[in-house]
C-alpha cells in the first residue's frame, strides 16, 4: 500500500488545528472541485483533497491515521499490527488496496457499529466513472463492455478492489456527458441498507476527421486550386458512408458547405448537419509541366486577390 501524506496534500502542519484544516480544504475545494474547476487533473486532485479532509477533520480517523506514523509520500508500507487485527485478519495482504480504501473501511466499520447499535440501515456509497465512446458507436447505437474496479469488502470485512465488467448499451443519439445509472452496482450497504449506485458518464473521444458541436459535425475539406476555381465533384466521408458532393465553381477557402442530415442523431433519431469547411491546398512539389502551366496562368491572369488600399501587386 502506498503512503499518502494527507497533511502535505492539504498543505498544513501536522499539528494543524481543525480550523486550519477546514480553511485549507475550502481553498483547495474552490480550486479543484470537479463541478466548478476546469483545470486539467482537477478531479483526481480534488479526490485526494477530499480524502485528506475526510480523514483529518474526523478526530478518530485522524488519530488512526497519525498512528500509521510518518512515511515519505508514495512509499510502500504495511499497516501496523493493530490495523490488521481491526479486520480480524492476521495475514492480511494490503498490497492491492490503497490508503483511502482502508480508512474508508475503518470509518464504515465504525459507522456500522454505531448504526448497528441503533439498528439503522446504512446505504452504500455511489461511484462515478466515465466511459469513452466513439462517434461511430453513438451514430449507430452500440454495446460496449465497461470494466470498473471499485472498492468493496470480503467476508472478513477486509477492503479490496475487485474488477467487474458490465455490458453497456449505448443508445443511438446519446450525447456527450450523458449519464447512465446502474442501480445498486456501487458500494455495498450495511444492516439491510441498499447498495449504492454506479453512474457512468459517456465521454466522446476526439475523432480523427470530425469535430463535434452539438449535433452538427465539421470536417476539413482540402481542395486543389483548380478544383476550387473550376468546381469539382468530391467524395466526403460521413459516419453513414461516403457521399459525393458537388463543389461549385469559384469556391473560396473558409466556405462552409452543408451536408444536411449527415451529422449526429439525437435521441429521437433526427440528425444534425455535416459542414465541410474548405481549405485550399497546393502541391508541395510541381512537375515541370505543372510549373509551366502555372507560370502561363500567372502571366495571363489579371486577378489580384488583395484589395489593400494603395496596393498594386
Amino acid at each position, binding site marked *: 500500500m502506498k503512503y499518502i501524506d494527507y497533511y502535505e496534500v492539504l498543505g498544513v502542519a501536522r499539528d494543524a488545528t481543525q480550523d486550519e484544516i477546514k480553511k485549507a480544504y*475550502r481553498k483547495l*475545494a*474552490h480550486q479543484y*472541485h470537479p*463541478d*466548478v474547476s476546469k483545470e486539467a487533473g482537477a478531479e483526481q486532485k480534488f479526490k485526494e483533497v*477530499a480524502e485528506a479532509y475526510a480523514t483529518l477533520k474526523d478526530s478518530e480517523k485522524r488519530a488512526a491515521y497519525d498512528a500509521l506514523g510518518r512515511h515519505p509520500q508514495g512509499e510502500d508500507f504495511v499497516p501496523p499490527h493493530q490495523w490488521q487485527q481491526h479486520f480480524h485478519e492476521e495475514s492480511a495482504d494490503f498490497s492491492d488496496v490503497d490508503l483511502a480504501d482502508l480508512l474508508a473501511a475503518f470509518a464504515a466499520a465504525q459507522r456500522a457499529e454505531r448504526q448497528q447499535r441503533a439498528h439503522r440501515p446504512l446505504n452504500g456509497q*455511489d461511484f462515478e466513472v466515465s466511459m469513452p465512446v466513439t462517434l461511430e458507436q453513438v451514430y449507430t447505437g452500440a454495446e460496449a*463492455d465497461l*470494466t470498473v474496479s471499485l472498492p468493496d469488502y470480503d467476508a472478513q470485512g477486509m477492503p479490496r478492489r475487485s*474488477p*467487474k*465488467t*458490465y*455490458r*453497456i*448499451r449505448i*443508445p443511438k443519439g*446519446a450525447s456527450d456527458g*450523458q*449519464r*447512465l*445509472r*446502474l*442501480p445498486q*452496482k456501487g458500494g455495498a450497504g450495511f444492516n439491510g441498507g441498499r447498495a449504492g*449506485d454506479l*453512474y*457512468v458518464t459517456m465521454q466522446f473521444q476526439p475523432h480523427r476527421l470530425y*469535430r*463535434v*458541436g*452539438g449535433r*452538427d*459535425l*465539421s470536417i*476539413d475539406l482540402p481542395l486543389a486550386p483548380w478544383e476550387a476555381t473550376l468546381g469539382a465533384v468530391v467524395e466526403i466521408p460521413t459516419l453513414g458512408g461516403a457521399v459525393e458532393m458537388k463543389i461549385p465553381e469559384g469556391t473560396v*477557402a*473558409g466556405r*462552409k458547405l452543408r451536408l444536411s442530415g449527415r451529422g449526429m442523431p439525437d*435521441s429521437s433519431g433526427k440528425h444534425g448537419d455535416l*459542414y465541410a*469547411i474548405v*481549405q485550399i491546398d497546393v502541391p508541395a512539389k510541381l512537375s515541370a509541366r505543372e510549373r509551366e502551366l502555372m507560370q502561363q496562368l500567372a502571366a495571363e491572369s489579371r486577378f489580384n486577390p488583395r484589395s489593400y488600399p494603395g496596393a498594386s501587386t
Partner: protein
Amino acid sequence: MKTQITESVWLNASDICSFEHVVEVSGLSAQELRELIETGIIEPSNDDPGNYFFHTQCIVVARKARRLRDDFELDTRGLALALNLLRRVDDLETEIARLRARLGR
C-alpha cells in the same frame, strides 16, 4: 472475468421518475428538492406539486446539488445561485464548442 448484463437507466429528457426517486438517489432532502424546484433549478415535467414527476436527467442536477452542498457546505440559496451560474457556464461552453467546430482548424 464474467461480463454482467445489468439493468441500467439512462438519465435523459425522455424517461420519467418520481419526486421520491430523485430524493432517494440524489441524497438531497425532500425540503431541499422542493426549494430547488421553487427557484427553477430543477424543473418537474408537470405542475402538480402533490405529485411531481421529472425527466431522469434531473437526477444529474440533483446529485450535483448534493455534491456542492456537502463539499462547500452551501445552503439552498447558495446552491441555487451556484447551479444557475454553472448552467450558464455549461451553455456558454456548448456554444463555444459549436463555434469552434465550425471554424477551420
